[in-house]
């Protein structure tokens, strides 16, 4: 389709193959965890046995927040963040900004309070720097782990972020070179995988999935590498040339001129009224609220909303904190609507697929899994073509182990979480569960004979998946009847998803077993 010289085709094919081979396994882990992380919110709710209350931001919370504000040191009222965790407990972070002697940076420091959304009882109260008080909530361990694995590959910051950013660039190049080297993209778009030889069928499968997934592979890779590099490299560099280090001018251009300082005391207007007005203006209830300068005349309340029905973009509404009056819709960048800000706001929804509830998430999960399929079939194709060379022959088990071992490790992480929830440090045991699952897969992959390797790994995955709901419930997680009673059908849905996946892999393993038995019988008969 695209005319290329022979030499260029050869070069592009080499880049496509080698980049895929060198980075493919890491790319697979990032893409697979990304596909799982699309459901991070749902995993969070499932892992804690359901939400105590639906739409918690729609209930009255002004009095609770006000009462608790009276209990924290005055300097912690400089900024207050209000949101809800997976269990729908209200999380309040009353904080100021001071230099952390450990990092040398200005960081959030204050009091974090977890509140039961039904009884309004204080469940936990911690004081410290943001990085110390957040991330210790036992209920958030599993979904945070999945997201951290996807974003950082468990590597320390910022190296993990750079690594996944580079993998995003590799994926983008794989998609683009794939497009360029595949001469008959449209002509072959409906070509069902041929059965004339395993290699031909494998190639057809890889090309077919790659063709139909091309656009989204590009979009997901592009937006992913944007997230990795924008904060760490892009913004600081561009700020230097655009503003020459002038912080004030930068803040005025990007965020708008700050409100004139007025520290005179003034009570905060009714939060519930602001929440209600903001929800009706934005078309969805707020999911994050920030109050700046609580109790002062210059108080500002910012409310963040998910995209309303039919739209891709969320919004941020601003209210005057002391009068409670609506002040306007704030851009993500700059003070008035612009093409730049609008495009920037699309990056998140396009990467996370979280713009239209469960439906868009399901499509995004499937797209992610399709990318996994392309990555693994590409790797297998490369290795099978080189089976005559000892080095590449030795690499084939690695692909099987990573392809099935990563989901085994993820499911084991969930086991680690459930077994420790309410008993031990969930963050530690989720990580240990992941490492344990990975270790078991590696040992199985090496110890089991090649003919049985895939079958053994599939059976392990089926077994660990099938056990998850039982382990969750046996450790005190809500039963299906309880979940249904509290309106948490999602918990049942996630359990069913685990059982269905388990069945699928069990069927794969059984079929593989009977296929290899038939092959052995045929060989014996011929002999």
């Amino acid at each position, binding site marked *: 389709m695209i*005319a*290329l*010289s*022979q*030499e*260029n085709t050869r*070069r*592009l094919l080499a*880049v496509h193959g080698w980049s895929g081979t060198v980075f493919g396994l890491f790319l697979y882990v990032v893409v697979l965890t990304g596909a799982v992380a699309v459901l991070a919110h749902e995993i969070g709710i499932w892992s804690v046995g359901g939400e105590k209350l639906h739409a918690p931001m729609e209930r009255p919370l002004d009095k609770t927040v006000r009462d608790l504000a009276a209990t924290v040191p005055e300097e912690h009222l400089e900024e207050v963040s209000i949101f809800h965790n997976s269990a729908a407990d209200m999380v309040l972070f009353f904080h100021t900004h001071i230099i952390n002697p450990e990092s040398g940076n200005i960081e959030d420091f204050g009091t974090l309070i977890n509140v039961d959304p039904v009884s309004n009882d204080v469940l936990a109260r911690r004081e410290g720097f943001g990085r110390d008080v957040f991330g210790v909530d036992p209920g958030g361990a599993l979904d945070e782990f999945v997201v951290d694995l996807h974003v950082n590959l468990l590597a320390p910051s910022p190296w993990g972020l750079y690594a996944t950013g580079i993998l*995003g*660039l590799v994926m*983008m*190049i794989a998609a*683009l*070179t794939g497009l*360029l080297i595949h001469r008959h993209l449209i002509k072959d778009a409906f070509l069902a995988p041929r059965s004339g030889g395993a290699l031909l069928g494998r190639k057809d499968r890889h090309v077919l999935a790659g063709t139909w997934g091309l656009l989204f592979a590009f979009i997901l*890779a*592009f937006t992913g*590498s*944007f997230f990795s*590099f*924008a904060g760490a*490299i*892009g*913004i600081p*560099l*561009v*700020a*230097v*040339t*655009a503003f*020459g*280090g002038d912080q004030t001018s930068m803040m005025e*251009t*990007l965020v708008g001129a700050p409100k004139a300082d007025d520290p005179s005391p003034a009570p905060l207007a009714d939060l519930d009224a602001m929440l209600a007005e903001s929800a009706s203006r934005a078309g969805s209830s707020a999911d994050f609220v920030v109050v700046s300068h609580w109790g002062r005349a210059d108080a500002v309340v910012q409310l963040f909303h998910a995209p309303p029905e039919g739209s891709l973009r969320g919004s941020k509404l601003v209210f005057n904190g002391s009068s409670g009056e609506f002040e306007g819709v704030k*851009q993500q*960048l*700059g*003070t*008035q*609507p*612009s*093409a*730049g*800000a609008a*495009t*920037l706001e699309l*990056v998140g929804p396009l990467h996370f697929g979280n713009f239209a509830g469960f439906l868009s998430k399901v499509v995004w999960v499937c797209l992610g899994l399709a990318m996994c399929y392309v990555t693994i079939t590409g790797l297998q194709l490369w290795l099978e073509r080189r089976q005559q060379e000892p080095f590449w022959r030795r690499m084939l088990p690695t692909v099987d182990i990573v392809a099935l071992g990563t989901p085994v490790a993820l499911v084991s992480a969930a086991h680690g979480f459930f077994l420790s929830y309410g008993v031990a440090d969930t963050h530690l045991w989720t990580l240990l569960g992941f490492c344990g699952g990975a270790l078991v897969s590696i040992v199985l992959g090496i110890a089991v004979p090649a003919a049985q390797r895939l079958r053994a790994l599939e059976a392990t995955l089926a077994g660990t998946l099938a056990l998850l709901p039982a382990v969750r419930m046996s450790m005190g997680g809500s039963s299906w009847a309880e979940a249904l009673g509290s309106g948490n059908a999602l918990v049942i849905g996630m359990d069913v998803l685990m059982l269905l996946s388990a069945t699928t892999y069990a069927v794969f393993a059984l079929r593989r077993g009977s296929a290899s038995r038939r092959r052995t019988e045929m060989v014996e008969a011929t002999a």
Partner: protein
Amino acid sequence: MGSNVSTTESAEGSVIRGSLWARWLIAGPLTIVTAILVMAGAPTWLPEGPGGVDHIAFPILLFPAIWAGLFLYALMESRQWRSFTLMLALCVLNAIPVVSAIRHMTSAS
């Protein structure tokens, strides 16, 4: 495109086609440096737009695309001196505002 390759392969051969390591250097480190410098320098030549932020948003947003475009170009350009010269020119042109901004910053502080 096809005739182009046959001349390079037959007549001047490796001189025009260049060597593998030169392509690695151009498509690798030089492309990364160029992409970063283009992103950093772009705010000075991109229009600000009605909201006054387009010149900041688009370079950051398009960085992966800038890199990918330059990388593919470096990979496919048969005359390596051309890709080398173009990248170097982009580097220098975009480095001027970056260096002057940094000098301005250091002298101010």
